[in-house]
């Protein structure tokens, strides 16, 4: 410990400050460099799009871009993304308030019910809903009541919303739990009604949280292939898939670039809404809870109905297929534990690598909030919005040439593909926890002569660890259910839960899809419990 006079003696102090500043510059430069490397790495697959897109003759490319057909795809895709985002907010925010800020009985149960749909791949939801509703569906055959078929664009919107709103729910809930609720109490004391207090005090504070979740939901909606394809909606993903498989890879690339252009606009708009200036620092979640009174019954009923639709319907349908299966056994689709192990192993690796990649980008963007940091952070979102088949083909092309020894031999190229697809989920959550670290804590550590890195390791990292874990779990969950990239880049002969579901479903051997689907839901469900438990630990 230095004596106080040391700090007062400027002549002694100046070289020290200078030294520290140099050190700061150097570590900042290192951080910027690391972030830039990560960002460049994860957008590098898009290089392939340009390689392929320039192969389209300019006249034909122009014709394709301005064709009414492309216009419809664009309109449909934007409607899909916009309405899913809007509905996700409509579902996610009230549910977050309900579970985090009211006296609803059994809050943990309802939190789990509201969050769990995220673990179910939307295409499984789509299969289940189509099997359940519509003429000839399970409800029709059991009750003889014909319910309109769920399909097309409205069907896709419904299904994707039901399985992606938890993004908004989780991020909003996290923001609610960490905001300083004493401000709300103050507002209430100043005679603001509960609604006004929410609008003027709570909402501005949780807005970045809502925006972060809404962004993930919207980007997921525009990149989802399985649901629109199954429902027959004409959007970018299904058309890109059609072009890709119809040997129009160049057109597919062109369409994907158009898609990215739209996504870029969305990212810029969101960057405006989700600014952090208004976001508060952590302040503990205690304080005012809203009393529901008799409203608790409709509230619980609402969550129950939602949970029944999103969770019980698919589980029931798959269980039914499992129990009432008939026909000759098909050994090719026999379940093996190795498939589950492969899925978990890949998802763990993806989660680990994604959180390592996310740290520099999220830390830099959370601390610096400069234009450069925003650009680097946003760059990591692009892969999330691009359909998996495009990322898959891009990495087939690039990986096969640049890293032939990794191509389809080990799991690393596949893991990289997952990181390209899912990094923003980790970046988003880590970043919001970085934002909540009080500058003063770090300054204190620095004053105590801790180096930049040591301060990060001993002070910042433990504080943001919950965010890192939460981000990893989101990456884990989404990797578990990822399909196209898995099929295209896994080592030859390696099967996973989803590849088995896909194969069995494709051959109409639904009963063989049941066990892997239920197991996928179970494993992902358990990891979701870890996520919620950890968040619970924070508040209590």
């Amino acid at each position, binding site marked *: 410990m230095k004596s106080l006079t040391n700090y007062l003696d400027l002549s002694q102090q100046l070289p020290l400050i200078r030294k520290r500043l140099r050190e700061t510059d150097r570590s900042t430069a290192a951080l910027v460099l690391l972030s830039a490397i990560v960002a460049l790495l994860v957008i590098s697959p898009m*290089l*392939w799009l340009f*390689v392929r897109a*320039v*192969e389209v003759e300019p006249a034909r490319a122009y014709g394709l871009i301005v064709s009414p057909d492309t216009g419809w795809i664009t309109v449909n895709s934007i409607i899909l993304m916009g309405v899913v985002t809007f509905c996700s907010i409509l579902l996610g925010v009230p549910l977050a308030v309900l579970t985090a800020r009211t006296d609803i009985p059994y809050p943990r149960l309802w939190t789990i019910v509201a969050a769990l749909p995220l673990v179910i791949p939307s295409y499984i939801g789509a299969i289940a809903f189509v099997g359940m509703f*519509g*003429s*000839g*569906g399970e409800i*029709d055959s059991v009750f003889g009541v*014909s319910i309109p*078929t769920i399909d097309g664009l409205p069907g896709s919107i419904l299904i994707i919303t039901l399985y992606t709103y938890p993004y908004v729910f989780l991020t909003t809930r996290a923001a609610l739990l960490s905001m300083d609720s004493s401000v709300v109490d103050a507002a209430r004391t100043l005679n603001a009604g509960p609604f006004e207090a929410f609008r003027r005090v709570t909402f501005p504070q949780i807005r970045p949280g809502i925006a972060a979740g809404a962004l993930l939901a919207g980007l997921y909606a525009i990149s989802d292939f399985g649901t629109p*394809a*199954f429902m*027959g909606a004409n959007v970018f993903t*299904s*058309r890109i898939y*059609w072009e*890709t*498989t*119809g*040997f*129009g*890879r160049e057109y597919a690339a062109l369409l994907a670039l158009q898609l990215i252009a739209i996504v870029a606009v969305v990212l810029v708009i969101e960057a405006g809404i989700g600014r952090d200036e208004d976001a508060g620092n952590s302040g503990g979640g205690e304080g005012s809870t809203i009393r529901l009174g008799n409203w608790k019954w409709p509230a619980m009923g609402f969550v129950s109905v939602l949970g029944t639709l999103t969770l019980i319907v698919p589980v029931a349908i798959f269980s039914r297929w499992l129990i009432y299966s*008939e*026909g*000759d056994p*098909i*050994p*090719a*689709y026999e379940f093996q534990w190795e498939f589950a192990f492969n899925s978990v192993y890949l998802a763990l690796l993806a989660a680990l690598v994604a959180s390592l990649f996310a740290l520099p980008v999220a830390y830099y963007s959370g601390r610096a909030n400069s234009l450069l940091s925003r650009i680097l952070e946003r760059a990591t979102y692009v892969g999330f919005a691009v359909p998996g*088949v495009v990322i*898959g*083909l891009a990495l*087939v*092309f*690039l990986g*096969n*040439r*640049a*890293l*032939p*020894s990794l*191509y*389809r*031999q080990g799991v690393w190229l596949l893991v990289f593909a997952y990181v390209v697809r899912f990094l923003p989920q980790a970046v988003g959550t880590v970043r919001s926890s970085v934002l909540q670290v009080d500058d003063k804590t770090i300054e204190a550590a620095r004053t105590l002569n801790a180096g930049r890195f040591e301060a990060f390791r001993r002070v910042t990292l433990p504080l943001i660890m919950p965010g890192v874990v939460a981000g990893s779990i989101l990456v884990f969950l989404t990797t578990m259910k990822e399909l196209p990239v898995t*099929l*295209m880049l*896994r080592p*030859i*002969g390696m099967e996973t839960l989803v*590849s088995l579901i896909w*194969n069995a479903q*494709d*051959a*109409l*051997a639904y009963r063989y899809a049941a066990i892997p689907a239920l197991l996928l839901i179970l494993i992902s469900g358990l990891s979701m419990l870890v996520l919620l438990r950890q968040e619970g630990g924070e508040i209590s």
Partner: protein
Amino acid sequence: MQQRNSDLTSRFGRRTFLAAAGGSAAGLAGLAGCLGDDNNDNTPIAEVEPMSERVDSGALSWDDLGDLEGEISIYSGRTPDQISAVFDALEDEYDGLTVSVDYDDNDVQVNQILEEETHPADLMYSQDPGALNALHDDGVLQQLPDDVIDAVPGSYQHSDGYWTGVTGRTRSIQYNSDRLDETDFDDWDELPTDIMEYATDERFEGIISTRPNSGTFRGFVQAMVERKGEEETREWVRQMADDQDAQLFEGGSDQANDINRGGDDDPIIGLGNSYYAARILNEDSDAPIRTTFTENDAGCLFSVAGVGVLDQVGDSELVAEFVRHLLAEEGQELMMDDNGEYPVVEDIEYVGPLPDLDEINPPEFDLSGFDMDLQEAGDLIEEEGMFA
């Protein structure tokens, strides 16, 4: 054949451009292509002598062929239930053999191979000749040994022996036998035997379906172009899409399943491969789905699933002998039993639930001359507004 050559020039132009662009991108992406571990055996497959008997000497048993030892990896565009029984049986037969298979959508596999510079698999096992022709046109396949080529009729393989069919199937008309009263037909016997009528007969309006994104559908369209000309084919596709308002499916299984399910919104009739219906009947013999066939036109096109050997393989001798095993009696019979497919080796008799090829009367079609330009058929389908 003559008019095919006329558009060869434009295709050649496109392909040269593709190759040039691909080449420069390869340069950009890294010079690492040559750095990968190279345990490839570059002996051309065509020059590999049979380890034991030649496979063209009639119906051979696996016992007549050489032992398989080592590791072989396969890109499969066929699904595991269609094909894995053969691979499993071979692994059971030979202790030293490992067969690693990558299953994915047929078209995705082909596109993936076209994007690759070096191929991690030895073989592509594809659903349809068009896909194998596309691979050949891109120069990634190599010629098969003489005895393999001679074992299969010329019309079921590539004219220069770059791929061979292993099993065959036909296009069919599927229908739901319980739903006659919802149609304007008095009996299912009235279903036309001319595929052209399915696009023009008003009785099919709103109840018919097809699956435009499949390789077989493109093959079917290409066959129709060859026999009826482009104008009539375009008209057929357009009428199918617009006048008949055909329901379009992403998957052959989905389509057959919906026909079988028989809900109010489901199609009653469907154009598709016969084995999709056969599989449903295999699961449940009381299922209402049935098949019928057109006469001697593209609607009952006989086509093959087959293999092509990629240009670099791990062990040429193993790969060549493996292909021989697929054409031997056990290989052919396994796929008959499992999949209701037709054998392509003449000495091997077809036994199964489907009518014999003579009864179906498929068109005389030389698949080897079936230079299927998938892009062209794909463009045609798309330009006439048919996509799911």
